[in-house]
């Protein structure tokens, strides 16, 4: 009988606190908890990071040699691309100077944040950072990796801390596009594919009309990490093609790198294609992230 009463009390208290949490009424308690525990969490994360490297080194040793070879070839191909890119940039600058126009590239304001915690449940993919509303971080803001690729959005902001929903969380959906024009560069990244990224080859390639980008929705998935849904069935997408934000919907600026296509799936009778995407940044064990505070998502700008 006592146990039944205890269960009833626990149920009632839980129900009330969940409701209050959903209304953000208990945020000060969470903020206080994170404030107290953040220094210890940071210390533990720093201490655990080398242990993790050893652990992963043992687990993934078989793949490391193959990956090293593949990365070496990718590096070589990318160097060739960089050379071609520099040539094109110089050409663009010359043309801009000649036409007296300047392309619009507003400076982005980024805040550097340290990751202090990760959600351990396995049912979600979220991390906590040491910046919050007091630093200008608001819900919906875009979060990037140190290299500038998309890693997620702010899902809940407290006074001094914020939780970030990563792009591989099941609740995350990003309007994305596959740069079909860049699928050539995707092929360049594949060691087996022939490369034509030499500077002399680039002008010829740029003379051909650029294909329309293929649009879809990059959806987080606990099993496949990240999948690109709602792709048109007639779209031709190669493995290695780059996936970037499309900017549709106004919640993400266009052109932010999300990842690259690993394989495309077309089921019979399915109205859309589906592709698995490998995120550009390793989303496990992040230590530093950038919050893009200069871009206001559509939700925040609404009156």
């Amino acid at each position, binding site marked *: 009988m006592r146990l039944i009463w205890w269960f009833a009390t626990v149920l009632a208290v839980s129900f009330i606190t969940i409701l209050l949490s959903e209304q953000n009424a208990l945020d000060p308690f969470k903020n206080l908890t994170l404030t107290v525990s953040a220094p210890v969490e940071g210390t533990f994360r720093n201490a*655990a990071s080398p242990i993790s490297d050893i652990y992963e080194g043992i687990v993934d040793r078989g793949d490391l040699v193959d990956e090293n070879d593949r990365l070496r070839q990718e590096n070589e191909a990318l160097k060739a691309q960089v050379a071609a890119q520099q040539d094109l940039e110089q050409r663009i600058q010359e043309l801009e100077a000649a036409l007296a126009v300047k392309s619009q590239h507003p400076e982005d304001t980024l805040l550097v944040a340290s990751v202090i*915690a990760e959600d351990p449940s396995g049912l979600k993919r979220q991390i906590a950072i040491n910046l919050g509303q007091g630093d200008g971080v608001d819900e919906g803001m875009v979060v990037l990796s140190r290299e500038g690729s998309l890693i997620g959005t702010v899902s809940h902001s407290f006074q001094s801390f914020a939780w970030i929903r990563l792009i591989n969380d099941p609740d995350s959906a990003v309007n994305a596009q596959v740069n079909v024009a860049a699928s050539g560069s995707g092929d360049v990244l594949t060691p087996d594919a022939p490369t034509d990224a030499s500077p002399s080859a680039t002008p010829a390639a740029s003379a051909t009309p650029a294909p329309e980008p293929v649009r879809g929705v990059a959806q987080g998935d606990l099993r496949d990490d990240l999948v690109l849904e709602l792709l048109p069935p007639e779209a031709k997408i190669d493995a290695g093609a780059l996936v970037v934000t499309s900017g549709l919907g106004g919640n993400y600026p266009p052109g932010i790198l999300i990842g690259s296509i690993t394989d495309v799936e077309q089921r019979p009778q399915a109205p859309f294609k589906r592709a698995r995407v490998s995120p550009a940044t390793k989303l496990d064990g992040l230590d530093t992230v950038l919050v893009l505070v200069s871009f206001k998502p559509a939700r925040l700008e609404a009156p």
Partner: protein
Amino acid sequence: MKYAFVVAAAWFLAILDVSAMPYIHPLGVSPDLVLVFAVSWAVVRGHDEALIVVPLCGLIQDLTTSDPIGTSIIALAPAVPIAVAVRLRAIESDFLPTVIAVMGTTACYGVISMTVLGLTGQEIGLFHSLFRVILPGIVVNAIFTPVVYLPTHWLSPRPAAWLQGSARLPSSL
């Protein structure tokens, strides 16, 4: 005093859960040391203390994760009846019953968390959550049970000899 110790220990383990443990993910999931601690305490110290310790651990767990406060309080609640049930046993050792209770509580915890998160609007893949998160979690938490159980066991007072039944097998654990 003992509840102050419980709060401190649970807090320490909750911080470990969100900071260091995500780096260790055998079978793709991290161990939940707070759950293991709550169950170990409930089995070793009896259900009178479990009635207070289990919700306390749930509250601390909720304060350090992104879940709404109350999720872990309700999800850990089955630890108490499970601990009571496994105390009805044929051997004197607390260890094996604790492992069984950890496995049972992990399963209940996963299902209840999934339900609460689903009801609060979180997208939950039922098949994946069940087979890639909850089932591996049962194994991983069982593997990590000794790490938390042994200190809990050592810090607990031994039952008086006259309380022990004569039909049970003795064990050093």
